[in-house]
Structures are given as C-alpha cells and as structure tokens.
C-alpha cells in the first residue's frame, strides 16, 4: 500500500506514485537496453517490444477488452482529444453534431469545441445535457439530445469535481440503440471497482491511479468507426503516433494492477473516511453545503462549499496548515468563471473545497483536517467581513 505525504488530500488532481510503479521505473527505467526501439528487429528492440505487448495485454485484461483495442497515449487529455477527434473523423458522413453531459472534464469540452473550428460551426455545436442537483446526467434528456447527424456522445464515468457516478450503462444502451458511439472518460474511476462497460471508446490517465505522468490510455472497440484524426506514422500502433516510453507504460500498468487488486478493501476504507467528512463538516462549520451524490459516488472524493468564503483563500489557509486540497471556485482567479460543474448543478460556487483521499491515506490525516477546518473557514470569513 502506498504511503502518501501527510496532508495530501488532492488525489483527484494526481495520485502519488504507487510503489509498484516506482519499482518498475527504478528497474526497467534505468535498464541498459530499455531505451531500445520496440519497432526494431534486433534483440534489444524485440525485448522492449515484448514488454510493450505484455503491458498492452495486461491493460486489456484490466479494462475488459482485447489487446488490439488498447493504445497508450502521452496523457489522459491526449486520449480524450484523440477519442473525440477520431470518432468525428470516422463519422464525418453522418454529421458533426456531438452530445455530452454538462459536467464533463474540460478536456472533453475543449475537444468538442475544437470540432467547431475544424468542421461546420453551427451544426457542430455540442448539445450539453443537464444534470440534476446531485450532478447526475438526465438519461432521457441525453437520449433526446441525440440526432440523426450526431457523430458521437461523451459521458464521464464519475464526476471529477463532486464524485457523482454517472449512469454509464443506461446512457450506453441508449447510444447503442441509436448507433451513436459513446466516449467514456474514466479518468477518475479506473482502478476503483469494475471498469465501465458499454463504451465505444474508453479513456484514462495513469497519474490518477498512481502511475507516472506522461501515460494515458485509449481503448477503441473493434468495429467502431474511428479514424486517425491527424498525421500518422510508421510505428506499431496505428492509432497513436510517436515513440512510446515503455518503462512509463509498464509502470502505469503495474500501478493499475496493484490498485485494482487492493480496491475492494481500500475503496471501502476511503468511502468510510469520506462519509465521515460528509457528516462532520456541516456539524462543525456553519453555512456549508456538501455537494454531490451522498450514495452513488466515488469512494475517495467529497466536495463542499462554505458560504461567505472564497475558495482560493481557503486553499491558501489550508496550505499554511499543511493540507493540499483543490477548489472548483475561481472567484479571484484570472478567468473569473465559476466551475461549470457547480453551475450546472445549481450548487454554491464560491468557497468550494474538493477533498480527494489518496490510496493509503492515514485516517489521522482526515481527523487533523476536520480539526483545523472550522478555524480556517472562520479566519477567511473574518478577513472578508462575513458573518461570524
């Protein structure tokens, strides 16, 4: 089990490197011949090729698909961008319209917006489907948004800001019936319970499950009309161009295997800790709204908003107290735009704190966080002249 640094409660941004990944990087990453080109036929190249093929097979087993459906990318964001652009290219004749939930990760929204720049601007404007106050997408509204010219649809497995699980299987069934391919962004949930099912293209990001940065994954189901959206190359993977960093990929797979193995027990432990945070915060801090689904949610993530505070000030004070968390508020940031997730939910957007527990987090860290939180919130309220 990993041992994350004390006070680090921002796993949803990046999970600390898992010991299994660290071990692979320390051995294969410094291997005398690990740098060899897996596309070459001499011994060193063949050896790296074998390692890459093994990693692809293991990843396929973890995702519940075939090895030839799996591609490794340079990041989760690249995986999302390729998933969307590749389906749009493959379904150009059908149309350029897209459908997604209103609470997708920004990488999905950016990919959909980009289609408007390269395609037919007005027809290609994405239809963003509303969510309920808990952040769950409306299945019937999703179905109603699908059109004859819909090239693709996107739905996250779970929301990255509030932890609410999305009805992926139901939406996948709707999309299948309408013959619209569905991209499932599983960045927040891979390695936690069973992988999602029903997808046409699945994407993930290794540093969210304890793998290294620089590794993402994209799986494309056999038979899905996906085309390489940009320039290609002569290497082995027909979907993703470029020389792969095999030790990083191997470390990512080792981490995902390890966390998947530990998931039943660790997810239950983290879910109990986040349940404690959900219950305790409103009891010790006045004027707080805990957001997101209390039951159907990610085990490690909890989000709440504190009235009369600003998110950045809370982050600053918590950092001073030794805690790393994140915020969907951007009150004083340069964009001045509140989180599109909180806005779509109708939740309070200011004073927002997202706590996401890394695997192996000490229960004591959660207790310490809950102990300092009331003082931190009050200090920020006093600064802003809010009620005491």
């Amino acid at each position, binding site marked *: 089990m990993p041992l994350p640094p004390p006070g680090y409660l921002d796993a949803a941004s990046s999970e600390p490197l898992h010991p299994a990944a660290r071990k692979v990087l320390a051995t294969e990453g410094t291997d005398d011949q690990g740098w060899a080109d897996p596309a070459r036929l001499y011994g060193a190249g063949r050896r790296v090729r074998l390692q890459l093929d093994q990693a692809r097979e293991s990843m396929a087993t973890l995702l519940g698909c075939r090895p030839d459906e799996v591609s490794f990318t340079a990041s989760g964001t690249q995986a999302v961008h390729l998933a969307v652009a590749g389906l749009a290219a493959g379904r150009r004749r059908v149309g350029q319209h897209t459908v997604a939930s209103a609470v997708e990760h920004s990488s999905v929204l950016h990919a959909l917006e980009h289609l408007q720049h390269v395609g037919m601007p007005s027809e290609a404007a994405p239809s963003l489907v509303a969510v309920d106050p808990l952040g769950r997408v409306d299945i019937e509204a999703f179905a109603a948004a699908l059109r004859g010219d819909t090239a693709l649809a996107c739905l996250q497995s779970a929301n990255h800001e509030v932890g609410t699980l999305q009805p992926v299987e139901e939406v996948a069934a709707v999309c299948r019936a309408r013959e619209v391919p569905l991209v499932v962004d599983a960045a927040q949930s891979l390695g936690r319970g069973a992988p999602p099912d029903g997808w046409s293209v699945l994407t993930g990001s290794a540093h969210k499950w304890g793998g290294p940065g620089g590794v993402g994954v994209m799986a494309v189901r056999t038979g899905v009309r996906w085309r390489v959206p940009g320039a290609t190359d002569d290497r082995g993977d027909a979907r993703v161009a470029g020389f792969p960093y095999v030790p990083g990929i191997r470390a990512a797979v080792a981490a995902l295997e390890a966390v998947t193995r530990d998931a039943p027990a660790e997810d239950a432990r983290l879910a109990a800790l986040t349940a404690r945070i959900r219950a305790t915060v409103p*009891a010790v801090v006045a004027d707080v709204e805990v957001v997101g689904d209390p039951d159907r949610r990610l085990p490690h993530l909890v989000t709440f908003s504190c009235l009369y505070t600003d998110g950045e000030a809370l982050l600053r004070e918590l950092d001073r107290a030794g805690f790393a968390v994140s915020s969907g508020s951007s009150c004083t940031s340069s964009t001045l735009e509140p989180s599109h997730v909180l806005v779509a939910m*109708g939740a*309070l957007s200011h004073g927002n704190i997202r706590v996401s527990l890394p695997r192996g987090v000490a229960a004591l860290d959660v207790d310490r966080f809950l102990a300092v939180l009331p003082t931190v919130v009050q200090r920020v309220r006093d600064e802003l002249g809010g009620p005491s």
Partner: protein
Amino acid sequence: MSDVEASDVEVVDARGLLCPMPVIELQRAARRSPPGHEVRLLADDVAAATDVPAWCRLQGHLLVSTSPAAGGGTAYVVRLRTKADGDGSSSAEASRSR
C-alpha cells in the same frame, strides 16, 4: 412587482465586487431588514448568477426575480423568509448549526 412598498426595498449595489462579496453584502442587508421584506441586489460578477439562487435556497429566502439592471449588471430581488417559512436549513445538506 410585489406588495412591498418601494421604500421598504433595501437596495444593495455590489457591482464591481467579485464573489463572494456580493453574497456577503446580500447577507448583511438581510440582517438589517425585517423578515418578509425584499432586498434588491445589483451585481455584475458572473458567479452571482449561481450563488444568489444557491444562497436563497440554503437560507430559505425566495428569489423573486432576476432582470438586467439599469446601468449594467443584474438585479436580483430577494424576499426574506419569515418565521412561518422555517429557517431553510432542512434543504440539501445545509447547516446553520452554530
């Protein structure tokens, strides 16, 4: 409009202020005003469009109207809760425990 006389409506101009200041100003005005009266908040921060309705929901007040304000920004008219409305804390997971 409403049955409250214009002179009874407290006007708070929070234009130019960023979140959470418009909501803090609104809360101060609510404290000064008797239950059942209206507060008219003028704000141009984009977050107010989400946070004013959320504040009303959490505190049990009623958002009567939202409209463009003369001179820029948005006017939010809020009717303050009365004793009979309850304290609003039962909604969602809001708490006013202290």
